[in-house]
């Protein structure tokens, strides 16, 4: 019985300590004020630098309460279940804008209140997922291109997505675990649209991937840059922001825009229909459109900025880099990913078949 008492006593001490921590916590965390000068931002972790948030609060007196999600899909499910109530600003990628809009979950954006909207480049505006940008304001954009290691192959000889099939890359190919990305690359390699809803084309893409499969080392779920930097893989799909970092960490790495074109994405700021602080949200969006602020944001993450004003004052490294500041030739045939509606089921079916080796 002694040992039990000891265990019980030890447990008691631990609980007491834990409660002490708890008490400290409750006192340490200031209660979130329910006052009007507040803004609930729903975004990826630290996708807006803390310094920018602090500056916004200092200038406007609006406190930013920033919570996070880990994928567009999860954010979409939650916003939909909550019927757009609770959050004031969300940052959906590309076609998640049209999905939220079609479900009637987004508020129309009053652009007359955004005096910095004019800074945005027409290249990223007025895309199929939100014609006329009535519901979204681009925040950051980029491409998903092909990265190769010079030790294995001369990057100049790589011009097509089909080069992934080259024998030098056997067992060293990385693809994305996002089905729309990987299927998108396969569709592009075959000369189709990344937004194809044609079952025959999707099936062909599946067969293209299936043929490539023996050469694939990993379907990436986290940052593909690590696998490239440590040379676990030698070729494959990568986001341009990651590519920029990887290339600066390992000089053997090169980023290529295949001639069939690359999938493009854009993360946009949007206001859910049920937002309680819509004016604050507009102020926040306008603040992020200021060239100096947009510059600070994009330099933190090394993606591309849709902000022409920011592009002009960008650090020379980013401005010169073809990875983050692509030329028009680089983006020939490039395509923004769009919603495929019910064809999603076809994608899902072939993706499952690919993953189970059927």
């Amino acid at each position, binding site marked *: 019985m002694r040992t039990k008492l000891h265990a019980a006593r030890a447990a008691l001490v631990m609980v007491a*300590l834990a409660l002490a921590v708890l008490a400290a916590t409750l006192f340490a*965390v200031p209660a979130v004020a329910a006052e009007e000068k507040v803004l609930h931002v729903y975004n990826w972790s630290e996708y807006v630098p803390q310094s920018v948030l602090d500056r916004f609060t200092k200038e406007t007196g609006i406190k930013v309460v920033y919570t996070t999600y880990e994928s567009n899909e999860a954010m979409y499910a939650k916003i939909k*279940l909550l019927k757009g109530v609770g959050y004031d600003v969300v940052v959906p990628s590309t076609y998640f804008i049209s999905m939220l809009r079609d479900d009637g979950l987004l508020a129309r954006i009053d652009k007359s209140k955004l005096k910095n909207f004019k800074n945005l480049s027409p290249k990223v505006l007025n895309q199929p997922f939100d014609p006329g940008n009535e519901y979204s304001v681009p925040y950051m954009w980029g491409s998903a291109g092909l990265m190769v290691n010079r030790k294995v192959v001369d990057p100049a000889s790589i011009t097509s997505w089909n080069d992934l099939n080259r024998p030098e890359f056997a067992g060293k190919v990385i693809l994305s675990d996002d089905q729309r990305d990987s299927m998108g690359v396969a569709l592009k390699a075959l000369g189709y649209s990344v937004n194809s809803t044609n079952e025959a084309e999707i099936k062909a893409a599946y067969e293209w991937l299936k043929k490539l499969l023996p050469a694939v080392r990993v379907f990436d779920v986290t940052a593909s840059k690590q696998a490239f930097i440590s040379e676990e893989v030698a070729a494959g799909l990568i986001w341009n922001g990651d590519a920029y970092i990887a290339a600066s960490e390992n000089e053997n790495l090169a980023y290529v825009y295949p001639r069939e074109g690359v999938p493009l994405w854009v993360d946009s700021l949007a206001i859910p229909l049920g937002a309680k602080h819509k004016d604050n949200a507009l102020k926040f969006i306008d603040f992020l459109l200021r060239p100096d602020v947009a510059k600070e944001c994009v330099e933190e993450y090394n993606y591309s900025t849709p902000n022409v004003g920011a592009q002009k004052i960008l650090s020379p490294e980013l401005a010169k880099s073809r990875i983050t500041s692509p030329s028009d030739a680089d983006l020939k045939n490039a395509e923004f990913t769009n919603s495929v509606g019910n064809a999603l089921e076809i994608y899902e079916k072939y993706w499952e078949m690919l993953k189970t080796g059927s």
Partner: protein
Amino acid sequence: MTLRLRTLRTWLVWLVYAFLYVPILVVIVYSFNDARYTTEWKGFTLKWYSALAANGPLVDAALNSLSVATLAATIATVLGTLAAICIRRYRFPGRKVLHGCIYVLTVSPDIVMGISLLIFFIAMGVQLGFWTLLAAHVTLALPFVTVTVLARLAEFDEQLIEAARDLGASEWRAFRHVLLPLAAPAVAAGWLLSFTLSMDDVLVSFFVTGPTFEVLPLRIYSMVRLGVKPDINALSAVMFTVTIVLVLLAQTLTRTRRK
């Protein structure tokens, strides 16, 4: 036990502890690594600690996680132990259903539990935040306590409690003085498992928390797309060190009191 077996045992214990702690040591070492992105060693720095100190939201999320985990583990342990005792000792309507619930909860994928609880909370008209998160974490952890306590009580001698009852002890007193001391190691183990589960849950938390209450695992998992920053390593190192110091402190305290 022979001498050889004893050495073997000591070796095994050390090996397992090494297996458990080497990755943590790696995290601590890398919290001093002067590299923003890579997993290569680039020299010593303390800058991630100052970055951590300046990162208020991250520290708040960590403190939120600690308070939810502490409370959730405690409530789950109480409820889970009671559930184990009810299932083990009492006959009442729906007992088998309850027992089944315990296993169903353990199997439920996080995504299913998260979404179904969110729908339930919305239907109830509850404001999402601390309380919904707490209820979800208690539900998540409860079966782990129950299964552990049930295993401990498996060979439990019913005569002990009957003897206590014959001597005039109430059911509560019999529980307090016979059952609980007997189950204590399992109850403690259950609390530890619950705390661990709560500190690490992402998907359930994602769905049931609201726009003003963020927990640490969510914040960390949501960094995956942009790359996890090294100030997370610094945070992990700080939390780990504080835990170890607290444990050593508590151990010294109990030891001196025993003397």
